[in-house]
């Protein structure tokens, strides 16, 4: 019995482009609310596309997180009383990858012309009040609260440390190889204006000398906790050609689901992600192979998740991502530049939305024509392939 499946998304209903990107500052605890950061990111994305708020007639967000820019908040903020197509299947994580596919239907049938997707989080600010945060939704799940938390198998750093340990056993992955992911990702953050860890370079020696949090993980194997927000504007490729930015179009989208959901302990393929199911669909839709991808932004809550996604998406054989990281291939300028802004590990923990804005930024510039975002919630993974239009 297989452990997951790909969701049959079908072809894009129409050509979709990401025409504008925007962000609120990504920071440690800022005292700001998610709502105000979301509005700032959305305003920046609309301006980046060369549009005005009145041009926006479609809105995507995810209701599972507090303070998102939902329809009511959007209308209030912009005193917008025109027609508004809405979808609660937007936001970050997996949905930052699938939102363009959802949006294509609305763009194709005339429900909307310009759709903005946004995600914001204020977990750094909330942490002092012990509210929110990445562990909360897991602790609220009855099976985890009753069968895992009592033994201390909680929260995510412990889950993924356990997965990493098994990966090390099955494939010979080493602590040094995990360290190479942390060091490379940090290096990229030091090159990125606005990255939370921009002024904190990391060497492999310093990584190895730092104390374990949950073995084999050190603090540097784990994502930051951040405040921040990001947004992007979608429209048809045709319309995007009339806007002010180079056209970055959606080439392929895939979505995979694990049958054991986010119960990682019970997932038969313990050291894999549902990218195994999402990736092939996205590559088929795009009509390309992994070897044609120039830049990767992979949802990286932990170093091991970067490695597993590289393998599961076919950028190397299963078990070979550790040596790949060690070879330097993931660095900017090398074969597979990965998490070029510093990822969740060193740029900010804004749950993938900044991965997508970074990917668009890379594809607008020289040197990269095809890029891939790997979205992940645990229960699901999404693959979004973007391409600079000719």
């Amino acid at each position, binding site marked *: 019995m297989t452990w997951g499946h790909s969701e049959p998304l079908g072809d894009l209903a129409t050509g979709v482009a990401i025409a504008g990107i925007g962000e609120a500052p990504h920071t440690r605890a800022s005292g700001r609310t998610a709502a105000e950061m979301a509005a700032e990111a959305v305003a920046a994305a609309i301006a980046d596309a060369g549009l005005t708020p009145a041009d926006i007639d479609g809105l995507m967000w995810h209701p599972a997180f507090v303070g998102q820019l939902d329809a009511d908040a959007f209308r209030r903020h912009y005193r917008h009383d025109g027609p508004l197509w809405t979808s609660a299947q937007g936001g970050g994580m997996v949905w930052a990858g699938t939102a363009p596919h959802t949006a294509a239907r609305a763009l194709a049938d005339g429900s909307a012309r310009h759709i903005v997707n946004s995600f914001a989080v204020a977990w750094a600010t909330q942490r002092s009040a*012990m509210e929110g945060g990445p*562990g909360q939704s897991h*602790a609220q799940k*009855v*099976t985890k*609260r*009753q*069968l*895992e*938390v*009592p*033994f*201390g*198998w*909680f*929260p995510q*750093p*412990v889950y993924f*440390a*356990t*997965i990493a*340990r*098994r990966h090390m*056993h099955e494939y010979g992955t080493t602590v040094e190889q995990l360290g190479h992911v942390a060091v490379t990702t940090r290096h990229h953050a030091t090159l990125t204006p606005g990255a939370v860890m921009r002024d904190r370079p990391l060497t492999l020696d310093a990584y190895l000398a730092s*104390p*374990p*949090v*949950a*073995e*084999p*993980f050190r603090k540097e194997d784990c994502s930051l906790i951040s405040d921040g927000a990001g947004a992007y504007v979608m429209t048809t490729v045709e319309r995007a050609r009339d806007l002010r930015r180079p056209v970055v179009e959606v080439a392929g989208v895939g979505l995979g689901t694990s*049958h054991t959901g986010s*119960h990682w*302990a*019970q997932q*038969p393929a*313990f050291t894999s992600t549902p990218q195994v199911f999402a990736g092939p669909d996205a590559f088929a839709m795009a009509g390309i192979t992994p070897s044609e991808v120039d830049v990767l932004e992979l949802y990286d809550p932990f170093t091991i998740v970067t490695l597993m996604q590289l393998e599961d998406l076919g950028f190397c054989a299963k078990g070979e991502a550790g040596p790949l990281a060690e070879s330097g291939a993931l660095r900017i300028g090398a074969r597979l530049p990965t998490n070029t802004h510093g990822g969740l590990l060193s740029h900010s923990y804004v749950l993938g939305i900044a991965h997508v804005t970074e990917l668009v930024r890379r594809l607008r510039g020289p040197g990269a024509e095809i890029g891939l975002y790997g979205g992940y919630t645990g229960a699901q993974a999404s693959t979004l392939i973007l391409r600079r239009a000719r």
Partner: protein
Amino acid sequence: MIFPLPDLDEPLTGGFWHAAARDLLAFPQCASCERFCWYPEPRCPACGGPDLPWTEVRPAGTLYSWSVVHHAFLPAFAAQVPFVAAVAAIDSAPGVRLVSRLLGGDPAMDAPVRVEFGWLRLGEDRVRAPFLRRVP
């Protein structure tokens, strides 16, 4: 804040803890297709069968993976770190992985372990629970 002791009255998972209170290890097993269904669900995910009695199994398994946890992610764990959070495959319940702690240290991949009952404690409260220990 999260209260880390289990609630024995939780309908979905109570059977696990009621068995542990008698020093027994039990998992839901589908009465129709005999598959162990773990974690518990209202119906068997394989055949849809609604009858999933808690079935006692031999308290022996194989260590599948673990993490030595140094950081107390919850205040309740502050007095317990470092501990070995562990996942074990249960020999006589195919497909079932038990999340617990390894007692006595010396974790090793795929090592045989036995299930040993002890107390999970929080302040004055305690709950009988299955732990893991390597077979000498």
